[in-house]
């Protein structure tokens, strides 16, 4: 099968519905197990930090949520472009589903960051580069959600949201490198490509596990939300009615 045929098959709501339904229970199972193991490991078994004490255990939810907040944004922008250029409706459904989920993970990153900041920095909030650019990410998500709900014509809404998503991509390298470019309270990345983490494995291994758990959970949620869009937009299709 050539690439273009493969691409188009995945763009079909019917095909997506079939595989999303089959894949969902696995993803749900994996996320429960990975999150359970990772969180218990991180909360009870990993050693406490010599500077931050036990408050550092917030890392096991804060870092995955922040990472997802950014990854989901990229996925949303890419899906918008695909929907726009190739007129693939399913891709627009994915982009639409990404927005609220990305917003929630960004909120989790901001809240857990604030809670972590209080005992560590002595403040809930500081208008520094990392925190401010992360807040802008949240506003971008909210703007995209608002834009979609404000425009009734679906294709126009998709285009407008896509343009905003593309423009907002500028913010991502700013978030990523803010801790290196500016003086900031925020510590630098735990994981770097090609570099050993500055933590011992007893500390970063559980982080790897919760990270995988968060990504599985997001994948599951994305399938659920996108399938919901199919259920709404294709409600009159015979193939869908035959399945329920």
């Amino acid at each position, binding site marked *: 099968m050539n690439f273009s045929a493969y691409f188009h098959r995945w763009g079909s709501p019917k095909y997506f519905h079939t595989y999303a339904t089959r894949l969902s229970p696995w993803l749900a199972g994996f996320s429960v197990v990975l999150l359970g193991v990772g969180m218990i490991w991180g909360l009870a*078994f990993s050693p406490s930090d010599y500077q931050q*004490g036990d408050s550092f255990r*917030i890392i096991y939810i804060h870092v995955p949520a922040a990472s997802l907040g950014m990854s989901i944004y990229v996925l949303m922008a890419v899906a918008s472009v695909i929907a726009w250029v190739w007129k693939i409706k399913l891709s627009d459904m994915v982009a639409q589903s990404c927005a609220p989920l990305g917003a929630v993970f960004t909120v989790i990153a901001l809240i857990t960051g604030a809670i972590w900041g209080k*005992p560590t920095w002595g403040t809930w909030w500081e208008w520094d580069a990392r925190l401010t650019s992360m807040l802008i990410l949240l506003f971008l998500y909210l703007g995209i959600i608002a834009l979609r709900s404000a425009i009734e014509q679906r294709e126009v809404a998709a285009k407008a949201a896509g343009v905003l998503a593309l423009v907002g991509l500028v913010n991502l390298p700013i978030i990523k490198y803010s801790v290196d470019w500016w003086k900031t309270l925020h510590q630098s990345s735990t994981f770097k490509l090609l570099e050993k983490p500055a933590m011992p494995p007893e500390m970063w291994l559980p982080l790897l596990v919760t990270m995988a758990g968060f990504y599985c959970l997001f994948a599951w949620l994305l399938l659920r939300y996108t399938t*919901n869009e199919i*259920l709404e937009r294709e409600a009159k299709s015979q193939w869908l009615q035959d399945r329920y």
Partner: protein
Amino acid sequence: MAFSSWTDFVSMGGHGVYVWSAYGVTFLLLLACVWVGQRRAKKLIQRIKKIAERKTYASRS
């Protein structure tokens, strides 16, 4: 185990309030996402069933 007792585990050297509230908020928000998705699916499936029913009635009469 990094803690010697349950009380130690809960208090986390005075940081318990922060750690547990961070985990609690995260858990609630994630649960809300799951719940919203499941509830919407249920409603949409009911709607599809109704549309299909109406179709069969229309074809019979």
